[in-house]
């Protein structure tokens, strides 16, 4: 029972898959960054009235 087993490799990504996944991750990070900056900028622009808008 105490036989030593190699850790399972699971799915090994190819170089192309790793590269494209990395680029997609960077794009998502940039999009989220833009969203954060946008919310921050609008908060500055609207000032105290940020929650006071039509509807």
């Amino acid at each position: 029972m105490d036989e030593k087993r190699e850790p399972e490799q699971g799915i090994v990504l190819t170089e192309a898959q790793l590269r494209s996944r990395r680029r997609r991750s960077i794009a998502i990070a940039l999009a989220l960054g833009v969203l954060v900056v946008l919310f921050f900028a609008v908060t500055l622009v609207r000032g105290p009235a940020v929650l006071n808008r039509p509807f």
Partner: protein
Amino acid sequence: MSVVDHSAIELPAVRISEADVGDYIALLKPRVMSLVIFTALVGLVLAPGHVHPVLAFTSLLCIAVGAGASGALNMALEGDIDAVMTRTANRPIPRGRITKAEAMAFGMTLAFFSVMTLGILVNWYAGGLLAFTIFFYVVIYTLLLKRRTAQNIVIGGAAGSLPPVVAWVAATGSISIEPVLLFLIIFFWTPPHFWALALFRSDDYARAGVPMLPVVAGPDATRLQILLYTILLVVIAAAPWPLGYFDWIYGVTSLVLGAGMLALAVNVYRRRERSQSLRATRKLFAFSILYLFALFATLLIETVVRAVMPVVG
């Protein structure tokens, strides 16, 4: 031996995506998006009152992303059609770069964020109208109309006509005649534009089983419809001038451009021989893009000049 016999379980092959950022950008239909941004910009500039540049940028960004979301959802739902049409066979889904489920998830995420961001940061009327625009394009046009009726692009054209209205509502929180006029111009521009495309791509549409007018009613009936809609378009595009909504510069430009559009539509109607007909429809299709762009550019320049002139003077 383990409890579970692994050899007895056939697991489905795991698909690892190799899709690049460019494939996802292609899902957004960038060329359509550029026209949406431009018409929305005109709606925004034409709107009365001052809009803070950050809010203007936010509105345009949300409208652009909303249009991209519509494009992605449209491609997700039309992968089977795209695969058999030469014009669209190179899109990411038929090429196998992105799956239908991935495109759906991408489109839904963008739709959600664009609507919520516009609602939270600008106003909920604009957010609601953007949500309606996406719904109209994806559900009414793509799911209900496109494969069922030759009037698909006539009714579906409403979705493409709404961006300047969304922008106006984003700027003012209300609606008036001017954005409705912009809506009507794009609405009546859509049939001659798309039927010109459908005329020289009718084999493609027939193969895909899409009931575009040339496929269902034939090229001659389509040519007549193009001519009739072009006459309507020219009248509607010029009407804001005598009605006093837009200036004479716009009026004269719309008449000159309208004359060009009408001449090309008459040419399409008259040329029935195959090679001449192809040339005529391609010319009309190309000019129709220039027509809409120039018409809206005139409004944009006119408004900006009028706003700047007192300062300059």
